[in-house]
């Protein structure tokens, strides 16, 4: 939602700052327990770390040796999410692979760790592993199956927020919390800035939850509180090819470039760990992309001949307990700080953890918040599905206008808005045409997402529909999307280039670090279409 006036000076029990998976999970939990709650996100939902991550629903196996507690949490939350989030999770399964270059002793410790934390694993032979994943290196010595899955962060966040909506949970995007107001040691409200218009409103409340991930320290500073966070950058590559049918992890002491996560038709590979200058430091360098690409070949030797779609990076809010523990060695477990100890009641910060454990984190902090309101209702987020299965009547109608596999995909992306898109397609056969051929986005779906007031830019629509995330990276569907925006009259005084250029720039920014091989023809094509033919950045003659 974007309507600011409607909530100005309106009381909320709780204000959540941050529209990543943590904030979204808390919004759902508190709303289900009956607290009147609103979430503010300074940009788009899931535009922070929750869309700059690996997309792995951990089985816990990765942390079996380094962090047993996290391993156990991941194992149980993995099972929960497979139950409640089937429209965001791809139950691909996972595999751990040790090559002849990796430490044998670690394998033993890993098995012990898994057993101790209740993490499932099953030994298979190297031959079986290569049969199941034909691209695997012939250096494979041993392999295990685990319960890793792929998870879509964009969908998970939206599905939490929309589910919260059923319980009265509210949210605003492009809404930056600029100030936290307090008096007499108690939080009294927040001031929220509309990032589009620049206007500010006041929202009174009894409690503020800081769920701003790597930005948590900045947010805490708004009230003068200190949180020790060391931002750490992790870079990832998106390959335009599905190398493996399940998640493939390298079985060794966690290090750079260990994990391949297949998502639909692409594979996300990473990651790295390096000092970040701040939470916004999320542009991978050309050198990082090259370094990662080299590592990928150690597990899938054929990888070099495939195109890298783009590189991206996220920042981890690592806990800076003392300066001895940095980078990957610092604990990844989450931290909840009730700032009452700093003399400010009603302000709580949560950060760290993993996307996999977001629900558990939300439950823990919601318990604390509920305590402050003397609410004793128990957490029910693990019991109820985020998005119920598509009803038979919808499925029957959808069959007539969308191809069979298309309907489920659109339902997963749009959730409760699916019927809006369906009606568009039913009413007008033109709306069944594809706008984005790579990602199978019909005009009906696109227009449904574009019409939302949360869609301020083409990138917002991309995050909801995946339009522009495929092979062409927006070269073709970008222009089509623009035509549609004008057709719907959503351009509102803005020129075509003003709307399209930021989108192209954003796609380009991710292509740029990985410009070599099969990426080059695509880049040259995209640049020529928009610069040579259309002169998108051109001025006017005198």
């Amino acid at each position: 939602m974007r309507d600011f006036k409607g909530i100005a000076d309106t009381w909320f029990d709780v204000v959540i700052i941050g529209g990543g998976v943590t904030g979204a999970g808390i919004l759902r939990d508190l709303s289900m327990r009956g607290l009147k709650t609103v979430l503010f996100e300074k940009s788009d939902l899931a535009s922070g770390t929750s869309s700059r991550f690996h997309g792995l629903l951990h089985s816990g196996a990765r942390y079996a040796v380094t962090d047993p507690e996290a391993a156990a949490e991941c194992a149980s939350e993995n099972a929960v999410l497979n139950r409640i989030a089937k429209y965001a999770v791809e139950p691909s399964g996972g595999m751990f692979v040790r090559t002849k270059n990796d430490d044998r002793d670690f394998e033993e410790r890993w098995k012990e760790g898994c057993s101790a934390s209740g993490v499932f694993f099953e030994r298979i032979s190297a031959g079986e592993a290569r049969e199941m994943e034909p691209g695997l290196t012939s250096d494979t010595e041993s392999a295990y199956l685990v319960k890793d899955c792929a998870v879509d962060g964009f969908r998970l966040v939206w599905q939490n927020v929309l589910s919260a909506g059923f319980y009265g949970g509210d949210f605003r995007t492009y809404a930056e919390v600029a100030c936290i107001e307090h008096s007499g040691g108690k939080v009294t409200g927040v001031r929220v800035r509309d990032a589009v218009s620049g206007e500010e409103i006041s929202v009174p409340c009894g409690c503020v939850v800081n769920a701003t991930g790597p930005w948590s320290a900045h947010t805490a500073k708004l009230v003068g509180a200190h949180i020790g966070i060391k931002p750490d950058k992790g870079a990832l590559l998106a390959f335009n090819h599905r190398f493996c049918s399940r998640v493939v992890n390298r079985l060794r002491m966690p290090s750079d470039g260990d994990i391949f996560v297949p998502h639909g038709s692409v594979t996300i590979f990473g990651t790295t760990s390096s000092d970040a200058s701040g939470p916004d430091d999320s542009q991978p360098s050309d050198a990082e992309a090259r370094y990662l690409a080299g590592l990928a070949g150690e597990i899938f030797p054929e990888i070099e001949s495939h195109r890298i779609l783009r590189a991206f990076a996220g920042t981890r809010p690592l806990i800076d307990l003392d300066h001895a523990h940095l980078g990957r060695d610092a604990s990844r477990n989450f931290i909840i700080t009730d700032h009452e100890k700093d003399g400010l009641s009603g302000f709580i910060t949560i950060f760290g953890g993993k996307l996999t454990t977001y629900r558990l984190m939300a439950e823990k902090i919601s318990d604390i918040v509920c305590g402050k309101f003397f609410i004793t209702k128990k957490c029910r987020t693990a019991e109820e599905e985020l998005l119920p299965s598509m009803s038979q009547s919808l499925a029957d109608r959808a069959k007539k206008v969308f191809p069979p596999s298309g309907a489920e995909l659109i339902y997963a992306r749009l959730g409760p808005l699916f019927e809006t898109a369906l009606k568009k397609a039913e009413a007008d056969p033109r709306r069944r045409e594809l706008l984005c051929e790579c990602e199978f986005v019909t005009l009906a779906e696109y227009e449904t997402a574009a019409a939302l007031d949360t869609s301020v830019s083409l990138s917002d629509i991309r995050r909801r529909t995946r339009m522009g995330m495929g092979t062409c990276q927006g070269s073709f569907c970008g222009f089509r999307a623009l035509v549609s925006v004008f057709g719907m009259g959503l351009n509102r005084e803005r020129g075509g280039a003003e709307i399209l250029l930021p989108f192209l720039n954003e796609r380009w920014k991710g292509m740029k670090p990985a410009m070599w091989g099969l990426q080059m023809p695509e880049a040259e094509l995209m640049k020529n279409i928009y610069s040579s033919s259309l002169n998108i950045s051109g001025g006017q003659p005198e």
Partner: protein
Amino acid sequence: MNGKIYDNIVIGAGMAGLLNAVFSASSGKSVKLITAGAGSLTIGSGLIDLLGYSTVGGILKDPFDGFSTLEAGHPYLKCGRAAIDKAVRAFLDICDKRGFPYLPANGCRFVPTAMGRLKPSFLVPPSMDMESLRGAETVYVAGVDGMKDFSPEIICGAFSSMEYFKCKRFEPLSVSLPELGAAGFGSMEAARFMDSEEGCSAFIDRLKGKINTGCGMIIPPILGSKPGLWVYERVKSELNAEICESAVIPPAVTGYRLRSMLMGFLGDLGVELAENARVISAEVKNGRCISVSTAGPGGVKSHRADNFTVASGGFYGGGLTSAAGRVWESVFGLPVKTPDGWASADFSERQNYSGFGVSVNDRLNACDILGKPVYENVYFAGRIIAGADSPYEHSGNGVALATSYLAASLL
């Protein structure tokens, strides 16, 4: 082994390859054209940009005004002004001869684009010249109902706010051609429909009464799919309006027309054509190329010639191949110099990779740092040559024209 030894074997059928084959065959040489694909002509606008922007910024009124700002090593500086003038005349002659005249060279000519921009080009068919709308106070921007990738509103919005057009009024308009279906068709399908008598009259009839005589019109490129101006002339005269087709995203009808014209000419000139054939290697001896081998549907074949012209394009065309940190020319494996930072993070900015290519001397032979040719009977033409950032300076087909002409004249 095909026994014949040609005067010139041309590799690539983009703008540079087609023109080189036409120019060399016209002067009596025996020519064979070998190509893997269609190159960028059919997806580009078919417009010949020469130099639209000076490298120090700003749109140029006349491309030649910008020549003094070209950086050393630019392909135009290898060709020289005299050869470029001759190439331009030769191109216009061919167009006239083949019944698809382009407008005479006269400074930059502006073409409207689907993005609502004006694009400074140089050699332009009359149907795309914005200048023809100069006298019109009202300009209708007309789209076809349900057609993909064209929005009159984008163009009207942008042009209405341009100081340059302050005396004009732009109005969106929509023509319905239900014969093409409700949706899902593009400008190519519409242009093919307009080739027919039925299509052409339908378009005219449905516009009559909607527009005033003497007005101007901007439309998508749909005035016929074939090289020639008859659809354009007819629509213009029956509607009593000035008409201008715009540049759009691929596929581009206007580029397709130029390609058809050149292909037709090649046929008449008796140029032998090997399509879907990729040159995979070259046999070289004593600083000369003896033959090239192709892989195609008929297996591996060898082709001999006295001269070879490599017009294999850039990364998109396939003339350049790259791996992380390294670029090479695809047929001979010639190394390509690559300064650090291949691309800028800003899409609109200059991109270093656009200028990556084979370094040539002023005879268009690949050369080492001392300017010594590597193979003296192998010439390079078009995008494969280093030194022009064509999307930025708007010089793509101009470089292809100038270098393909020069290469042919050196045979």
